[in-house]
């Protein structure tokens, strides 16, 4: 426990949450080599840093050690250091990762390139402005039910709803999605995170809102070509493509692209 020591000014009681203590640095005799993006929305460049490697060190430890000892103006966003808050999302060697969940040793002594999430405007160094996502979130039709909570629901009806609720809103799936990152469809495409949210709402047994028209038109579900990068980077292992996006695409197909269902609706007058 490191409560109240010099490296833990916030009084956090778990050592895992505090920066690596100075006395641990250098024990392994090895060095970690990082190239960190330094700049802002106007541009910038990668600057090389070397720090003593500590066994079990995560990239966030290395970045915080650099911030403490070599570059006090280095901007990095972090909070829980336990892969629960989704604050420290960044790109490591070109892939979105949580800085707090990625061990330095994974890179076998090679250079580690650390940069901000590129699908969003860079504020400074490793910090991107992800506020666009909160605007999209406001546009998602909220839960609607004619019944008053608390609801009586059965386990077998809600078991599919646990997985989407695991989302920590790190927005790495949004960052890696080529529809946003490469094609910049931000106004027309909600992105994987919000398909996960829509799936939770759409499959909720008590929700009565019709979301399929929104998914097809406003949220641009058709722009997704299911190449699964979002699933690959999810730090909480949500099967975004298989369990959220494809089921929603199938429901949209029921409504808009299935000629037999269209004919049945015409016959029934519904």
């Amino acid at each position: 426990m490191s409560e109240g020591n010099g490296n833990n000014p916030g009084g956090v009681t778990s050592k895992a949450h505090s920066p690596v203590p100075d006395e641990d640095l250098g024990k392994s005799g090895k060095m970690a080599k990082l190239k960190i993006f330094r700049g802002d929305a106007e541009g910038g460049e990668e600057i090389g840093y070397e720090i003593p490697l500590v066994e079990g060190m995560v990239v966030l430890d290395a970045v915080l050690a650099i911030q403490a000892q070599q570059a006090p103006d280095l901007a990095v966003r972090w909070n829980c250091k336990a892969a629960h808050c989704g604050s420290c999302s960044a790109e490591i060697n070109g892939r979105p990762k949580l800085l707090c969940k990625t061990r330095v040793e994974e890179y076998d002594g090679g250079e580690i390139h650390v940069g901000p999430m590129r699908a969003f405007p860079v504020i400074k160094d490793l910090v991107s402005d992800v506020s666009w996502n909160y605007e999209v979130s406001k546009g998602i039709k909220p839960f609607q039910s004619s019944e008053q909570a608390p609801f009586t629901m059965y386990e077998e009806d809600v078991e599919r709803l646990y997985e989407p609720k695991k989302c920590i809103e790190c927005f790495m799936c949004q960052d890696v999605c080529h529809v946003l990152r490469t094609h910049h469809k931000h106004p027309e495409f909600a992105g994987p995170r919000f398909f996960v949210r829509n799936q939770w709402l759409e499959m909720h047994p008590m929700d009565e809102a019709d979301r399929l028209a929104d998914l097809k038109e406003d949220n641009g579900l058709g722009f997704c070509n299911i190449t699964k990068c979002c699933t690959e980077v999810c730090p909480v292992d949500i099967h975004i493509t298989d369990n959220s996006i494809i089921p929603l695409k199938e429901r949209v197909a029921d409504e808009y692209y299935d000629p037999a269902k269209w004919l049945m609706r015409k016959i029934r007058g519904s």
Partner: protein
Amino acid sequence: MSSIAAAWRRLPWWVEPVSVVIVLSVFGLYSFAIVSFLPGEYKEYLSPFYSPPIPHPDWMPDFITAPMFIIWMPLGFRATCYYYRKAYYRAFFWDPPACQAGAQEREPRKAENYRGERAVFVLNNVHRYFLYASFVVLAFLWYDTVLTFFPGGSFGVKVGSIIWLANVVLLSTYSLSCHSLRHIIGGNKDCYTCVRGGNTRRKLYNGVSRLNLQHPQWAWFSLFSVLLTDIYFRLIQAGVIPDLTILG
């Protein structure tokens, strides 16, 4: 398997799309050659590309062969399959070729031209109809497989019968792990306890979901099994290898 997967992930990003292009192109050319130029029946065996056997209409030009009336069903099923869509968007269209930043930067399509599955690829939404058609073909493949266990009218097991059985099992597993089937069988319901037979549908849904976790593997295994079954068929037909009897 996990060590193979880990080693695969360490390869450069372009290895996967290039491999997919090579495998799918070879399979496409092989299939085209088989259904265009070569026979499909030998003793108790029927090539998987020729099932079910149908007569060639006299009025049809010779370059359109009888199995071409069948092959569009499994071909369409695979072309619209959610897994193969991922594979060919990445491999053939580089849309994107891989997930890393360096790979995404090589995506050739300009941002203003990207339509995803909103333009021509919106047709992939008919996947469920190819699923229904594939089940019909699958029924004939099972019938053909049963016949291979009765060479000359009495029960017997040959190496060929085992190969045909493995092939049809893999094809069935691939079809039963389909995302559209998963939706139709129970994924389209929000409340299982609210509908008649809901518990059965939930169990079926969970069963298909378990198979669906390995849908990519079933897609590749079944593709290779069709290829290997047909190669075995060609080898015994040409007398290159004997079809060894195991029982009977």
